[in-house]
């Protein structure tokens, strides 16, 4: 077979995979939204209006589009962080904690004398990433040195980081008046400039796009990335091939931690806040699980998924404000999408229904098809 046809075949193969995965994700989203609609139908006084707001409101005004795009940038970063650890088959759940320590580091820099100089912005971002990386490094090193389960340790670090932030904001960081749980506004030099005036779209969007390319490059164009993916596939085999899988695991969690820290600085140095406050993150960090799973942990797919999911999230917020349906209903949608996409569910429903019915006769046939 000549080179050109081979390249052509692999390209066609890849397109087919993308089509299949996109179909699965859309199918899952439709099913989840359908279930959400049924729930809203039974619980809301004006279900059609609520659903109309959910699906159309984010597009309605420049301001809401700004909110949406700002969410997309943040979802992209957390999705990338989860993608990195998932590709190494680690289940570090520490992005939330990394966001808080990152934000703390950024706040300390921004409110120090450095913050008022041109260096305030870059040094703030850098220190946030450093703090996040350290917070991501702890569960990693504890796993390889002590054999401590990274899920539990990273979750504990989340709670610790949240309380640490509460504590430092209340007692240590400078604030406009005693008693409030927010810091002084950061000097303008430490705040991300807006890209579109009058919206929340700011430099964070650029950071998100750069991060997508950086993670893609690191995973698919460097030997570190190849090793990381090998470790994720089969750690024993990777070890046998002479890869120090423990070092790869720790470095993957540390790199993901740096992304979490970056997200922290995007929150507090971005147009949304420009100061640090307690509990600022609004449970966005954990949404990275959904983004990474639907994107199949592929960095280039992450922003696409974030675009769709950010729209849904924004729609839910607006639905919460304008109708009687609380935004939390979106948690149901999220959970169903994760369950469907993570399972062997597939759109042309034959095998799916066969599995549901537990017809074991279908199973061997299924294996043979693979």
């Amino acid at each position, binding site marked *: 077979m000549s080179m050109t046809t081979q390249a052509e075949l692999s390209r066609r193969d890849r397109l087919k995979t993308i089509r299949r995965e996109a179909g699965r994700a859309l199918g899952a989203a439709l099913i989840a939204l359908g279930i959400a609609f049924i*729930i809203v139908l039974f*619980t809301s006084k004006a279900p059609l209006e609520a659903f109309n707001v959910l699906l159309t409101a984010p597009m309605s005004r420049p301001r809401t589009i700004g909110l949406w795009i700002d969410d997309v940038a943040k979802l992209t970063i957390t999705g990338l962080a989860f993608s990195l650890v998932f590709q190494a088959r680690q*289940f570090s*759940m520490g992005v939330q904690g990394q966001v808080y320590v990152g934000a703390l580091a950024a706040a300390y820099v921004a409110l120090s004398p450095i913050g008022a100089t041109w260096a305030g912005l870059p040094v703030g971002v850098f220190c946030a990433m450093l703090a996040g990386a350290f917070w991501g490094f702890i569960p990693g090193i*504890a796993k390889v*040195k*002590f*054999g*401590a*389960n990274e*899920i*539990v*340790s990273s*979750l*504990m*670090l989340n*709670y*610790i980081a949240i*309380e*640490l932030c*509460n*504590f430092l904001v*209340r*007692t240590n960081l400078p604030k406009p008046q005693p008693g409030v749980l927010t810091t002084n506004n950061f000097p303008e030099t430490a705040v991300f400039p807006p890209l579109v005036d009058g919206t929340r779209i700011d430099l964070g969007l650029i950071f998100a796009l750069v991060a997508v390319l950086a993670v893609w490059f690191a995973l698919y164009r460097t030997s570190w990335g190849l090793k990381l993916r090998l470790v994720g596939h089969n750690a024993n085999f990777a070890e046998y091939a002479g890869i120090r899988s423990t070092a790869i695991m720790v470095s993957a969690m540390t790199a993901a931690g740096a992304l979490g820290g970056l997200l922290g600085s995007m929150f507090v140095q971005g147009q949304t806040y420009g100061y640090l406050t307690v509990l600022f993150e609004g*449970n966005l960090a*954990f949404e990275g*699980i*959904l983004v990474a*799973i639907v994107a199949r942990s592929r960095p280039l797919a992450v922003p696409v998924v974030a675009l769709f999911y950010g729209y849904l999230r924004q729609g839910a917020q607006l639905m919460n404000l304008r109708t*009687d349906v*609380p935004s*939390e*209903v*979106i*948690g*149901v949608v*999220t*959970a*169903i999408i*994760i*369950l469907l996409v*993570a*399972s*062997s*569910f597939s759109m042309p429903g034959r095998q*799916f229904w066969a*599995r*549901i019915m*537990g017809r074991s006769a279908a199973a061997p046939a299924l294996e043979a098809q693979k």
Partner: protein
Amino acid sequence: MIELLMTVLSTTFFVTVVRTTTPLLLATLGGLIADLGGALNVALEGMMLVGCLTAVIVSVFAPWYVAVLAAVLAGALLGGVMAFFHLRLKADIILVGFAINILAAGGTVFALTLATGGDKGTSINLTSKAVPALDLSFLGVIPGIGDFLVRMLSGHSILSWLAAFLVFAIWYFLYRTPWGLWLRGVGEYPAAPEAAGIPVNAIRTWSLLVSGGLAALGGAQLAMFNYIGFTRDMTAGRGFIALGAVLLGARHPVGALLAALLFGVFEALAVVMPGLFNWIPAELIRMIPFVVTILALFLFSYRALQARRLRSAGH
């Protein structure tokens, strides 16, 4: 320091420890059952939370024991969902578990809004019931130690006694019945029971159902005894701490009891410390259970690792 020592050695502190340990212990036992069946149940947190809300809402309309039973069934239902997606549809158990947590976090607030007619924070305007405490004041007639026994043993939630009994019951089930052997075999090396004709998937499904039920029972204790009523995210990481206790407990019910007790003691400390030391910031006191969990996890994992190394060196 003396005040702290006096407090810790008092019988009221013991009662507080029992109260804080009970939800953790029930969830830990649930995690243990799932773990033995070969599934790390990261959804304990969500199952507890759903248990809390179900217990509170049902108790508005029904007697307390119906509410507790409803909570258990709700938890078991979530376990069933996990089993279905993990065993039938081959989804990763950790991802399924986190999906359940997300479902629980959003779903409970959504259901709370419906039940209270718009309140997204607490169930304060619902009149929910409590699990009764077991009154053992008749022990006071015992000469000498009667008074002490009453202060130690009387006034605990019925669910605390049930939890203590369950430690024994689960031990008996695991080590004295064939099904317990099957469950342990399924988690250890599924191919062997499979070859012996034991229904591996059915056992795993049951272990997840029981796991969910136990975690939700812990939630019922939390929302019907430790606190009366539901507040959003009221489990506040207890399910994850219980998951840590599962890992610490060396896959044994007594180990689970000791691990849950360890975390329960520190949670109780966090309860009594603000009253004693008002100069310690509240945030740092609230941090205690999480710091203790992570440190204990590191320490015990390290010891287990070394024990494994020693064993393999001996061979």
